[in-house]
C-alpha cells in the first residue's frame, strides 16, 4: 500500500490521473500482467482512471483519448502502429514502454533478420498449414495496415519516459512504477545485471587462474542440471550476465536459463556484443557457434534496439546465399580454432 493513499479521497477522485493502455505488435501479455497484479491492483485502482484499456473493457479501437499516463505495449510493426504511437505521444504526459517489445523490439523484432517479402511469403504462402494456391498476399491496405520494412522499438520513434522491461513484465514492478508516479517520484529500475538476483552459485574461482569453465555446451533437455549451480558453468547458455536485473531471477529459480527479456543493462548498448565479449574467454567458442542459435539467443528481445538493428541486404543475393546466411553456416576459415593449422 502506498504511503500516499491516505490523501483525501475527494481530492484524488477529482483529479484522478487518466491511464491509457494500448497494445501494438505484441501478444497483449503485458496488459494481462497488469491484471496479474491481483489484489494489489486494488492498491492502485482507486487512484487512477482507465481511459482506454482493452484488457479490461471494450472501447473504440481507433480513438485515442487524452491521458496522463500511457502504458504502451508491443513493437511498431505496421503503419497503423506508427501513426498511433505518435498520437499517443502527443496526447499523453508520461509515456511508459511496457514490456520488452515496446522497450527493445522484442520477439517480433527478430523479423528484422529477414526481408519483409520473405516474411509475408512465409506467413501466407509457404507455411505448411496454409493452402493458398494462388499465392494471394495482403494487398488492400485500406482494410489491413501495411507492414513496415522492419520492426522498431518505441524509443526509436518517440520519446519514452520510463521503461518497464520484461516478457512479460513483473506485476509488482508495474505497480511500483505506477505508485511512484502517482506520488510524484521518479521510478527507477535496478542497475545491476541478473546474476545479482540469481540464487545459483559459482564453483570456486581462483583469481588469475584462467580456464574454460566447461567443455560442453548443452541445451537444458540434454543435461542433468544442478539446480543450484550457475548455468554457464554447466554449459547452458544463460543470458543473465548481459541482462538487467529486476525479475528476481524467476527463470533461473525455475531451472530455466535467463533468456534476456529485461534487455541490456544500463550502460551496455546491446546484448549480443556484450555476450560475445563476455563468453569468449569462458566457453568453448566452436561448440557454442555450432550448437546454439547465436543471433536468436543473444538478440531474442533486443534486435531492433541493437547497434545494427536489421539485416543488411546484399544486392542480387542468390537463393543459396540467402539460405546460407539464414542458417548462419559458419565459415571457419578465419576462426582462431583453425588458426593453428596455418
Amino acid at each position, binding site marked *: 500500500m502506498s504511503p500516499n493513499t491516505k490523501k483525501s479521497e475527494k481530492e484524488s477522485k477529482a483529479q484522478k490521473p487518466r491511464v491509457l493502455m494500448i497494445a501494438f505488435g505484441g501478444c497483449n501479455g503485458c496488459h494481462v500482467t497488469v491484471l496479474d497484479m491481483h489484489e494489489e491492483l486494488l492498491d492502485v485502482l482507486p487512484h487512477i482512471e482507465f481511459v482506454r484499456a482493452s484488457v479490461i473493457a471494450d472501447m473504440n479501437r481507433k480513438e485515442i483519448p487524452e491521458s496522463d499516463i500511457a502504458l504502451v505495449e508491443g513493437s511498431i510493426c505496421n*503503419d*497503423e502502429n*506508427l*501513426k498511433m504511437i505518435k498520437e499517443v505521444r502527443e496526447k499523453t504526459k508520461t509515456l511508459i514502454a511496457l514490456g520488452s517489445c515496446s522497450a527493445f523490439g522484442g520477439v517480433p523484432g527478430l523479423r528484422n533478420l529477414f526481408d519483409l517479402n520473405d516474411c509475408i511469403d512465409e506467413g501466407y504462402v509457404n507455411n505448411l498449414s496454409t493452402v493458398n494456391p494462388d499465392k494471394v498476399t495482403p494487398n488492400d491496405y485500406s482494410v489491413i495496415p501495411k507492414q*513496415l*520494412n522492419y520492426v*522498431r522499438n518505441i524509443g526509436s520513434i518517440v520519446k519514452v519516459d520510463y521503461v518497464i522491461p520484461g516478457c512479460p513484465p513483473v506485476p509488482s514492478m508495474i505497480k511500483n512504477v505506477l505508485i511512484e508516479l502517482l506520488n510524484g517520484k521518479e521510478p527507477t529500475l535496478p*542497475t*545491476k*545485471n*541478473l*546474476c*545479482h538476483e540469481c540464487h545459483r552459485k559459482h564453483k570456486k*574461482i581462483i*583469481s*588469475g587462474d*584462467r580456464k574454460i*569453465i566447461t567443455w560442453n555446451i548443452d541445451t537444458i533437455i540434454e543435461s542433468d542440471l544442478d539446480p543450484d549451480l550457475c548455468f554457464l558453468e554447466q554449459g547452458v547458455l544463460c543470458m*543473465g*550476465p*548481459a541482462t538487467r536485473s529486476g525479475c528476481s531471477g524467476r527463470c533461473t529459480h525455475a531451472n530455466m536459463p535467463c533468456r534476456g527479456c529485461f534487455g*541490456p*543493462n*544500463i*550502460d*551496455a*548498448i*546491446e546484448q*549480443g*556484443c*556484450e*555476450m*560475445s*565479449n*563476455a563468453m*569468449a*574467454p*569462458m566457453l568453448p*567458442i*566452436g561448440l557454442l*557457434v555450432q550448437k546454439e542459435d*547465436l*543471433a536468436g539467443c*543473444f*538478440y531474442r528481445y533486443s534486435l531492433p534496439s*541493437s*547497434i*545494427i538493428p*536489421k*539485416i*543488411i*541486404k*546484399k544486392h*542480387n543475393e542468390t537463393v543459396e546465399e540467402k539460405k546460407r*546466411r539464414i542458417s548462419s553456416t*559458419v565459415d571457419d576459415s*578465419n*576462426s*582462431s580454432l583453425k*588458426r593453428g593449422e596455418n
Partner: protein
Amino acid sequence: MRIGVFICKCRGEISSHIDYGDIITHLKKFEDVVLVDEQIALCSSNSYDELIKKIKNHEIERVVIAACSPKYYEDIFRKNIEVAGLNPGFLEMANIREQCAWPHKANREEATRKAKLLIKVAIEKVKYGSKINLEKSKVKKSVMVIGAGIAGMHAALSLAKQGLEVHLVEKKAVIGGDQVRFAKVFPRDECSPCAFAPIIAQIVNNPNITVHTLSEVKSVGGRVGEYQIKLINHPRYVDEKKCINCGDCTTVCPSEIENQYEFGLGNHKRIHIPYEEAHPHSHVVSEKTVDDCRRNCHRYCEKICVTKAVNLDMQPTELDFIVGGIIVATGHNLYKPHEFNYNNSDNVLTMAEYERLLVADGVTKGKILRLSDKSEPNAIAFILCVGSRDPKIHPYCSKYCCMATATMITQTREKLPNVKIYVFYKDIQTVGKMGDEYVRRTQEMKDVEWIRAIPEDSKIINGDRLSLKVNASGGYMDIDVDLVVLANALEPSADTDKLRQIVGLDKTEEGFYRESDILLNPVSTFDPGKYICGTCVGPKTIGETITEARSAAASCASVLGADEIIQEVLVSKVDENKCGNCKVCLRTCVFGAVKIDEEKEVSVTDNTLCRGCGNCVSACPSGARDLIMFPNDFYKKAIDIMAEYETDEPKILFLACNGCAYPAADNAAQIGKQYPSNLLILRTPCAGRVDTQYIEYALAKGFDGVMIGMCHIGSCHYVVGNEDLMKRMDLLYPLLEIKGISRKRIRVEEISPSEGEKFVQKVNDFLDQLKPVYQEENIKQIIDEMKLEENTDSAEVEK
C-alpha cells in the same frame, strides 16, 4: 573547460606536408580551445619552459599536443604539464607526424584534413581524461635472477655487491651453466673452468645471494618494487647438508641413465654427483627416474647412506617471497641437428659434444678419439652455420661459432699435431677486437684447410667414416674424414615460452625474449622492474653476455635504489551500482587483479596487480567496468568524430594495440612508406580492450571496414588480450553474418612493432578485400534511412 592545443612543426617535417594556417583557423572555431600555439620544435628544451609558461598564463586545464608519436615524448610532456600544475592524465597527443605528414606526403589536402580530425579526437580524449593517480609504494630491496649461467651469475654478483638481496633461481641441480664444462674459451684460449669456477665460488660464498637449485618459477604477481614470487623447489632426494660425498650410494646404485652433463655422450648412475666442480657439490637423483627407483628398486642408496642423507620420498615444496625486480637470464639451447648424418653416425658430433672430448675429465679423458672405435682420427671436418643463417631453420647468425671453431682447431692441433683439418664455412663473421686475427691464426696453420662452401651431402663410408660432397671453387669433390664437428646454432631454450607467460615478457619471432628497444633499451622490457640479459635475448659471445648481465643489474639496481616508487595507477574501475557479481571479469583477468568483495557482492580491482589492459572492461557484460585512461564513452565519441571523415574510397577504422600495431604504423611512416589516408587509427591499450560493440558501432556510423591490429599470438603484452579478441571475433562473425554483413568488412592482423612494411601491405590487402563489400547495402545509409522512412510512412498514412 579550457583546452590548449600546442602544434609542433617538427622543424618542417610536419609543416612541409600539412597546411598549418588551415588547422589553426579550424581549431580556433572550437568552443573549449582557448589557446592554439605553434612551435618549431616542441621537443627542444626551451619549448618546455614556454609550454609551462603558457599553460599557467592562459589557465589551461587540459593540454593537447599535436606532434609526433606519443611513444617518443608523451612521458616528458606529462612531466612538464605536471610542473605546470596539471595532472599528467590531462594530456593527449595527436600523432600528426607519423599518421598524417609522413604517410600521406603526396596529398597535402588529405593530410591536413586528417590532422584536423586527429586533433579533434585528441581534444575529445582530454575532455574525458581523468586524473592519473600516483601511488607511492615501498621498494623491496631484492631481486630474483632466473637462470644461473654466466649471465645470471654475473648479474647476481653485481647486484649483491650493491647490497641488494638476490634470489638466484636455477632449474638444474647445479649452477654455473654449460661454459664451465668446456675446455677453453676465446679470445685468449683461457681455461674455461679456471675462468668461471671462481665466479661460482663467489656466488656460493656471498651472503646476499640465496641459490635455489632445482627450482622453477610458478607465478609472478605484483609489480615493480613488490613482485610476489612463488617458486617450486623440486627435491634433490639427497639432503645437501648431510651428504658427505662419500660416493657409496653411487657405487651400489644398480641402474644408469644418460649423462646430460656430457651432452648424452656417456651414462652415469641414477644417483650421482653431476660433475666434479659442481655446486652445490652433493649427490642428486633425477626427478624423472625417481618414480622408477621407488617402485622397482630396493633403495640400496637409502640403506647404505651413513649420514641418512638419501631420501627418495622427498616431495616438492613451494616457496613464496617478495622481490623488487626480476632479471631473466635463462640462456639458450643448442640446435639439435639432423643434417650430415648426425643421427646415424657416432662420429658426427656437435660442438658441445666435441668440447667434452677436449676436456681432461670428459668421456675420453681429454683424448680426441672417435666414439665408434676409440681410434685417433686422421682427418676432422668442422662444418659451420649448421642451423644458423638458414631461413628455413634460424635466419640469424649464432655469433659464437666462428670464434669457437678457431679455439677448437688450436686445441685439436695441440693434441693431434698431424691431423688434417677441414673447415667448411659460409662467411667468417668475427667483428671487433681480436676477432679477425684470432681466426686468421688458425687459417695459417699447416694442414688446416678453410673451404668456403657448406657440404651438400654426406655419406657414411666404410662403416664409420664420412664422405662429404662439396661444391668448392673447382667443382664437386668428395672429402673423406674420420670425424665431423657441427657448429650448431644457438636457439631459444625450450622453457622460454612457458617462463615468458609466467613472468610476463614479450618474445621475438625467433623465439628469444624481446627487449623494449633493441637500439636504445637493450636489456629493458616493457615492465620497469623486469630485465633480460644474455643469450635468452639473442645470440652473443661470453664477453657480451657479461656486459649485458652487468648492464641489466645496474638498470635494475637504479630502479630499486629509491625508497619509494611512484607509479601511475592506470586501472579498471568498477561501478558498484552496476556490478551484479557475475564474475566474468574474475574469469577474464589473467593478472589476478580482480577480487570479489564478498560483503558487498561486487567485484573490485586490486590496483597493485591491475596493468590496465582493459580486457575485463570489454568482457564486462553489465557495463560496470571502465578503464580510467581509455573509457567507453571516449571510444564512442572518437568513432563518431572519425566517421565524419569524408572520402570516396572505402573508409577503414584501424583499432591498433599500443604494444605492437600502433608502433608498427609509426614504423611504416618512419621508413617512408605511404598508405591511403582513409585509414584512421585509434589507439587501444591492448587488443583485449577492443569491445566488439565498437566494431558494430563503427560500421553503423559509416566505416566500410574495421581492421584490428594486435601483437602476434603468444606475444601479447598483456598475455592473452589478442587471443581473447580472436575468440570474441569468432562469436561476432556469425552474429554479423546473420545480419547480412560480410566478414570481409573486418580484418584482424598480427603485426609486431618493426613490421611497418607488413602493415602497409596488409592495409592494401584489406582495401582490396573491401571491394566486394559494395555489393552490400550501405549500413549507415540504412540506419539513417530509418528516420527518413518513418517520415515517408507517416506521410502515406496521412493520405
